[in-house]
């Protein structure tokens, strides 16, 4: 979603499974046999275009056996499997939805969270596997860290990081997918960052709700058509497939302008028809308004899930699944920027000490799915709070990063586009920050660069932080407003 204006949607599903097998591979004496596969992650990334499903199963009779990425008959605790597939047809040149993504180097890093230090970490590349039931996946048997310990791995909690890098010798035709994170990634793409246990079976949301995926796909079409200068077709797509849902999801309150923002952007009517050079302001308004629509829709589904828990658990589960997809649509633009900030530091944007989105998002929805299955309202409430907080964290970060960009922009067109981006994300937080119209619009609505000073922008961030901390976020989850003081064009 975040890149809907600049690249085609790709849905990737990653599944990691440790599944039952013929026990031909030697199981470590320390490991308890897993009676059933444990799905430890099922996420949409990057950008919501691929689905990754990660499963852990018992040791299996593979030919040959691979343990921690190495061919051999070493003792293993379990088998780790990653299914990497497209989430929609025609993405990345991979054919139908559900088609596996080949020619990737999938790298796993597993940390034992109770054993910090070198002994508590193993890293290896998964190998392509083929099976009748599982299809084409990336997998390896695994001896969990510390490998020399005699403790049962089921007693530990692990952090699993999976990244993917395209095979180095894959030719890309000249028309090939200019911004595809699958084929063009210059650095490893983070697929999964999740905590896992091999003990109690965990429940995940069901497969993503098709109606919610259809909304995300329509939003991508709207963006793509507008980007391709087909504004009339973009408007038709919006009216036919998105607008009723956007209007129904639009939050009550002083700024019920999501639909209005989209319509204005599609009509090129921002600032009485002046979208700025290359329509930058209209593009940003459209992109930001669509994200706001998904944010509002996700919040509505969270409400619905909580309300239905006592009387209609199936309805609650369905709403929770829709919320999961809408969260991904709303947060996808930030996966790259924020996760990379975690991994390597941000490229010219204010850093956040806690920048991760994917791992806490998966955890929140896993916890919520368990709560619904168990019928435990307080647990669902906690999961809902965590999921909602992530939406606000992303919006606050986007306000901060866009303000940073605007303050440092050279050309006026770039400044105006970044200013609009900051404004639209600030507006998304209006209902929690508390009617900051005077501050936000007094700063971010001004097209006069003289009014957009580091001090004024810092006021906006300070007001956001005051509204979000500590109810929703920690200090470390939000930008320090003082970082803007040093930004100069």
């Amino acid at each position, binding site marked *: 979603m975040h890149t809907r204006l600049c690249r085609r949607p790709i849905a990737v599903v990653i599944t990691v499974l440790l599944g039952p097998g013929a026990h031909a591979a030697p199981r470590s004496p320390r490991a308890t046999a897993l009676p059933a596969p444990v799905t430890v992650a099922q996420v949409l990334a990057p950008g919501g275009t691929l689905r990754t499903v990660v499963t852990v199963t018992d040791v299996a009779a593979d030919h040959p056996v691979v343990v921690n990425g190495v061919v051999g008959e070493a003792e293993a605790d379990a088998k780790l499997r990653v299914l990497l597939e497209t989430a929609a047809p025609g993405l990345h040149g991979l*054919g139908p939805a559900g088609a596996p993504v080949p020619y990737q180097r999938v790298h796993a890093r597993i940390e034992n969270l109770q054993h910090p230090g070198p002994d508590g970490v193993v890293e290896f590349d998964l190998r392509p596997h*083929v099976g*009748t039931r599982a299809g084409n996946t990336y997998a390896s048997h695994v001896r969990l860290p510390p490998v020399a310990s005699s403790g049962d791995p089921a007693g530990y909690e692990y952090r699993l990081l999976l990244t993917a890098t395209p095979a180095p010798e894959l030719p890309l035709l000249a028309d090939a997918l200019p911004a595809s994170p699958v084929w063009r990634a210059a650095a490893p793409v983070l697929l999964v960052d999740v905590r896992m246990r091999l003990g109690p079976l965990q429940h995940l949301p069901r497969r993503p709700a098709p109606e919610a995926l259809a909304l995300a796909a329509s939003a991508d079409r709207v963006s793509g058509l507008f980007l391709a200068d087909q504004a009339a077709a973009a408007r038709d797509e919006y009216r036919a497939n998105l607008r009723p849902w956007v209007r129904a999801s639009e939050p009550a309150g002083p700024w019920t302008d999501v639909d209005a923002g989209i319509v204005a952007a599609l009509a090129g009517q921002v600032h009485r028809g002046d979208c700025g050079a290359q329509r930058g302001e209209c593009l940003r308004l459209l992109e930001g308004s669509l994200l706001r629509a998904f944010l509002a829709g996700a919040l509505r589904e969270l409400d619905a899930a909580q309300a239905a828990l006592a009387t209609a658990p199936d309805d609650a589960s369905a709403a929770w699944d829709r919320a999961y997809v809408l969260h991904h649509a709303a947060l996808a633009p930030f996966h790259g920027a924020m996760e990379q900030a975690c991994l390597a530091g941000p490229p010219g944007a204010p850093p956040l000490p806690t920048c991760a989105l994917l791992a806490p998002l998966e955890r929140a929805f896993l916890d919520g799915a368990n709560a619904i299955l168990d019928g435990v309202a307080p647990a669902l409430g906690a999961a809902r709070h965590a999921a909602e907080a992530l939406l606000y964290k992303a919006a606050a970060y986007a306000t901060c990063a866009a303000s940073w960009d605007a303050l440092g922009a050279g050309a006026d067109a770039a400044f105006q586009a970044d200013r609009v981006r900051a404004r639209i994300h600030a507006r998304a937080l209006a209902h929690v920050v508390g009617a900051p119209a005077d501050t936000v619009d007094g700063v971010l609505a001004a097209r006069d660069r003289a009014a957009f000073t580091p001090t004024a922008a810092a006021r906006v961030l300070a007001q956001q932080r005051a509204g979000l901390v500590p109810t929703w976020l920690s200090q470390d989850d939000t930008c320090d407003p003082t970082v803007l003081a040093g930004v100069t064009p």
Partner: protein
Amino acid sequence: MIGRHLWATAALLGATLAAAGCDDEFACQDDCDASVPDAGRDAGAPATLVVAAPLVLVERPIAGGSVTARLVLEPAHGVDAPATLPGGFFLPPAADLFLALDLRSTSAVVGARVPGEFAAWLRVDAVVTGLDQHGALRVPLSPVVGIADGMRYARNLRIREDLGLSGAGYDVRVAIRRPAWAGDPDTEASSPGLVREADILGGETGTLLGEVATTLTTHFTLEDLATPPSAGGGAPGTPSGGATAGGGQGYIAP
């Protein structure tokens, strides 16, 4: 945004060409890559063949009907990266044809999960023989990806320079070999070594995972290239070998 894509593409292309020792994609001399054969060069002849439209050479089910193979000739394609592959330069100077093999599963069997998914990790080699000159051009087809046609096994060819114009046409023979297995000595980047799971062991025979290579044979003429028959009608030439009873592979060379 589009401009950014073009810029990124140009940057990638530039990096690729720089890595190959070339200043410009179309200014490469033959010594840009020593692996590019230079036989048969005729400075007085036209530099390229004219390909009026994609020419479908073969479009048939293979591997017992579990996979559809579509072998096609197209004008030479530009490529972003990488330029140099096992077997030579992907876009050699004066490349005039693009030979591409699409392999799509027809059902969720033999490792496929959804119909239409690309059959990956295979090793594909092509031999093009000029019937007049009796020369042969042998190249591996690498997995490539593009927007228009998705993933295929493909390669640019220098028919004019390497084989010369053949009035009698050209034979094309494409051999599809199973993936390299993990632990095999002959793994490569596009087939790095697959692990077979227990439920597929023993069931590979007759599929693209079997030990016997599947071979497609056909031929085309210069006239076919200039006025290709309608797509979907199958090959202009007749595949030799025919289906092998019980083998499950549509075209197994004798």
